[in-house]
């Protein structure tokens, strides 16, 4: 063991605890090594076996998710998933969380989250073409919420806009369970040629290992700061653990990597994400069953006096590790120099199966790779099943009149102005959702649509989760998240292909939280199987809790579909005058766990709406067929807030540049009650706008396919009218819908 490391460990008060290794894990590390690990090695063990890198609590359950389909080219296990979209092209995508850093420093935390997910995608050889962001904030009245919203949104825009990848969609909701733990999930989708996908499996002893990108600093080094020999007293000042993003360098790194990827110089590539150099080097070598030697003296650094421990664990952003084909170093270097990006050969592959890290002529770490990379711990954590929630009967929920409101339309107005349903324009207008010129469906609809240049094709993208359903009954909530994303793609006329997921939960060490996780996964599994909608990538974020209060279970689903001909894309905006409005799917008036219940009736109890996956599939397939046959003028799925909210959103979306809107005249039955029909959140439903003279045929076709439909009214006027009596002007609805977030943010 080398001198420096001994000194370091002698100085650390309790290296094991500081590194967050359990006693059992420490014993295991000793067994693997046959000796005590030094400090650097200990840091490596802790990083590789951290929940974040090893998925030790979630592995067992994630394996349950279906990951295969004929169109899946790469499932989970690489930097991003890959699906075939025809014509020799693939979509590459993944979602990732940056929750904790965004709470500490909202701008930089969110910005670097975007940077990380972009790298995951271009590491695979794909050019990023769109991003989405899923945001959950604390209660609007919580003193930190406004500051966090402002910082996170500015950070996402600040990074994505600069790199030049359009941010085309996402979510933004509020709940007190996120007061001390916001969620910031970012998803990126890229485009590549099927025969030019890059992976992280290293091969070929003797091949050089290249480091490219920003210099390494002490950013984001985990654990309490450790006094090191070099830092002594000066290091008393808490070292920064917050990373600062450099989107400009990311843009250059992206262009340089894609340029090098057009050659065949790269054997394997991996971005330096969590646990930086450690995880990237172990993963590449581990996957190839290889060994690796790293010479840390050659790692570009921007600070002096860095220890091997710090260099191995730094999470400085905008960095990549690559294994090159021997002899191609010059060519690679030339490309990175052209783009003014640091390039250094920092090691080589060996066939020893060991990671040997050297610095200052000493061996700083010498570890077997396989036991760390593959044989990481796997826990079967105890979990408890969620209690089955009571059913809330529709006729037990007060009508708006009974609550002192002027009726269904006034409840609608209030719902549209509630934080979760209010327009998120204030958010997305800070994002460049148009850069690259290929966005043909902007934020505000069901799915964003990005055209694939040189073809008639487009990708449809959506990200969804309804945490209040997951909290009420995780299995249903998990299934619902998958179903809703599938429905959003369908509503745009797309063929859903696959999903990526971001599982945001509290501590898995608590059986009830573990239970939420397990049951959400099971629900997702059922939906993925029923809808032929496999999971190709994902991310788990546990420990989202403060003082024992966990976030609502939030399994966010990011979905990708393809539209074969953009001529048959639909949007949610009403278009015709007098055309028929047809509801697809069954209406039961399910109000349990609904927004009506929470925002209007002031209660949060009840079971979430059941998700009938067979009906979901039947209804969605029917809608998609009708869209591609050209029978649908506009289409919107029914989700949060129910039917009346969906129709109102269609009317509001019809606004012309001068502010004119198309209204609708609706008819709602008394069975079970108008407000249950208006605001019930039954699943598997869509509102279609259909030309009057095609409506009967469409409904007959639905009947034949076993799909329930009913006429709910027609387009017309500049207001929403219900049952010929109640009317509300669209201008009023618009003011309420658009007004809440800007006025909230103005403080």
């Amino acid at each position: 063991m080398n001198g420096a490391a001994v000194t370091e460990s002698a100085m650390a008060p309790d290296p094991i605890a500081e590194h967050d290794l359990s006693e059992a894990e420490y014993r295991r590390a000793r067994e693997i090594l046959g000796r005590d690990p030094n400090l650097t090695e200990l840091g490596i063990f802790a990083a590789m076996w951290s929940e974040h890198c090893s998925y030790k609590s979630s592995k067992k359950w994630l394996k349950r998710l279906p990951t295969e389909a004929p169109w899946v080219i790469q499932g989970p296990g690489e930097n991003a998933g890959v699906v075939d979209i025809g014509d020799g092209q693939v979509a590459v995508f993944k979602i990732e969380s940056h929750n904790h850093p965004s709470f500490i420093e909202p701008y930089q935390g969110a910005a670097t989250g975007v940077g990380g997910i972009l790298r995951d995608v271009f590491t695979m050889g794909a050019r990023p073409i769109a991003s989405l962001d899923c945001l959950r904030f604390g209660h609007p009245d919580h003193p930190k919420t406004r500051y966090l919203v402002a910082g996170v949104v500015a950070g996402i825009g600040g990074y994505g806009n600069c790199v030049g990848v359009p941010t085309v969609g996402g979510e933004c909701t509020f709940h007190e369970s996120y007061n001390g733990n916001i969620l910031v999930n970012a998803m990126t989708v890229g485009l590549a040629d099927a025969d030019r996908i890059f992976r992280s499996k290293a091969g070929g002893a003797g091949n050089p290992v290249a480091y490219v990108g920003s210099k390494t600093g002490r950013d984001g080094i985990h654990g309490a700061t450790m006094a090191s020999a070099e830092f002594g007293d000066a290091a008393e000042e808490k070292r920064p653990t917050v990373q600062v993003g450099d989107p400009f360098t990311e843009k250059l790194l992206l262009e340089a990597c894609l340029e090098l990827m057009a050659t065949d110089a790269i054997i394997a590539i991996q971005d330096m994400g969590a646990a930086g150099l450690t995880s990237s080097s172990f993963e590449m070598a581990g996957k190839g069953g290889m060994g690796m030697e790293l010479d840390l003296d050659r790692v570009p650094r921007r600070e002096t006096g860095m220890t091997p421990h710090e260099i191995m664990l730094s999470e400085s952003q905008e960095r990549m590790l690559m294994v090159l084909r021997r002899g191609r170093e010059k060519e690679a270097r030339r490309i990175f120099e052209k783009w003014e990006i640091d390039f250094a050969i920092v090691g080589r592959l060996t066939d020893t199966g060991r990671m040997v890290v050297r610095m200052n002529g000493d061996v700083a770490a010498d570890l077997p790779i396989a036991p760390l990379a593959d044989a990481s711990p796997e826990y079967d954590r105890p979990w408890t099943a969620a209690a089955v929630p009571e059913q809330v009967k529709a006729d037990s929920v007060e009508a708006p009149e009974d609550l002192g409101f002027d009726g269904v339309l006034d409840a609608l107005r209030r719902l549209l102005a509630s934080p979760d349903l209010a327009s998120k324009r204030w958010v997305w207008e800070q994002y460049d959702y148009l850069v690259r010129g290929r966005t043909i469906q902007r934020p505000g609809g069901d799915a964003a649509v990005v055209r694939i240049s040189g073809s008639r094709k487009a990708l449809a993208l959506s990200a969804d989760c309804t945490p209040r359903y997951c909290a009420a009954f995780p299995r249903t909530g998990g299934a619902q998240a998958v179903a809703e994303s599938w429905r959003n793609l369908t509503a745009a006329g797309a063929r859903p292909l696959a999903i990526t997921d971001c599982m945001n939960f509290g501590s898995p060490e608590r059986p009830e939280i573990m239970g939420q996780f397990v049951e959400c996964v099971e629900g997702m599994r059922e939906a993925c199987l029923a809808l032929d909608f496999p999971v190709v990538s994902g991310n788990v974020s546990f420990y989202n809790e403060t003082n024992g209060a966990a976030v609502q279970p939030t399994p966010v689903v990011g979905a990708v579909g393809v539209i074969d001909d953009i001529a048959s894309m639909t949007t949610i905006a009403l278009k015709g005058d007098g055309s028929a409005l047809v509801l697809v799917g069954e209406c039961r008036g399910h109000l349990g766990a609904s927004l009506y219940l929470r925002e209007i009736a002031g209660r949060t109890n009840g079971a979430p709406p059941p998700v009938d996956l067979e009906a979901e599939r039947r209804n969605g397939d029917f809608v998609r067929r009708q869209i591609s046959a050209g029978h649908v003028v506009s289409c919107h799925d029914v989700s949060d807030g129910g039917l009346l909210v969906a129709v109102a959103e269609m009317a509001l979306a019809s606004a012309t540049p001068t502010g004119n809107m198309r209204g609708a005249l609706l008819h709602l039955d008394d069975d079970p009650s108008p407000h249950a029909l208006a605001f019930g959140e039954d699943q598997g439903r869509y509102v279609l706008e259909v030309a009057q003279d095609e409506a009967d045929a469409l409904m007959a076709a639905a009947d034949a396919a076993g799909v329930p439909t009913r006429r709910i009214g027609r387009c017309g006027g500049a207001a929403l009218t219900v049952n010929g009596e109640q009317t509300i002007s669209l201008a009023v609805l618009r003011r309420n819908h658009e007004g809440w977030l800007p006025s909230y943010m103005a403080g």
Partner: protein
Amino acid sequence: MRAAVVIFPGSNRDVDVIDALAAVGGRQPIVVRHRDTELPDTDLIVLPGGFSHGDYLRSGAMAARAPVLSAVSACAKAGVPVLGICNGFQILTEAGLLPGALMANRDLKFVCRDVHLRVERADTPFTGRYAAGQVIRVPVAHHDGNYHSDADTLARIEGEGRVAFRYCTPEGHVKDAANPNGSINGIAGVYNAARNVLGLMPHPEDHVDGAQGCSDGRPMFESLVEHLS
């Protein structure tokens, strides 16, 4: 039309304008890079949008000092049309080819949305296919688009009819409420004295094709094609 698109490290709306030029002009533009000291023989030079050098320090500041700007400047003097869009506009002002400066938006946020522009004159290489006073709809996407100049300069460019576009309502009224960034006099774009150099913040190149939801930007490229043929 032989067009050259000048790319700086951090340009990112290069693809948008290259697509637009190719679609309207029928010919793929030539790409020139920031360190190049000479430009190919060309009819039109375009500085695209993006974040050159990250827009660190000031938007467009570092790019404006790049070697290629001397060549752009020489061409501009020789009368070649030069179009700077968004970051390109910022670069042209920083380089002194256009008057004024682009400061942070009034409300200090990035803004991406469609705006309406009043075309101030239709007798330039860039606007021949529009009518003077016509209102068009194109998107903006910027953080620093707040046009500013001192009073004398402003009086001069107004007096010389060098305002190219102003933010306006759909009906053509220049009003604060229609101004996305606080630009003085609602200025969205300006010409140089000879009117062969145009800088503007909005993105006509993102509205050239019906699939993009609107094609009000297309006539700008058609105007150039017509002017140069």
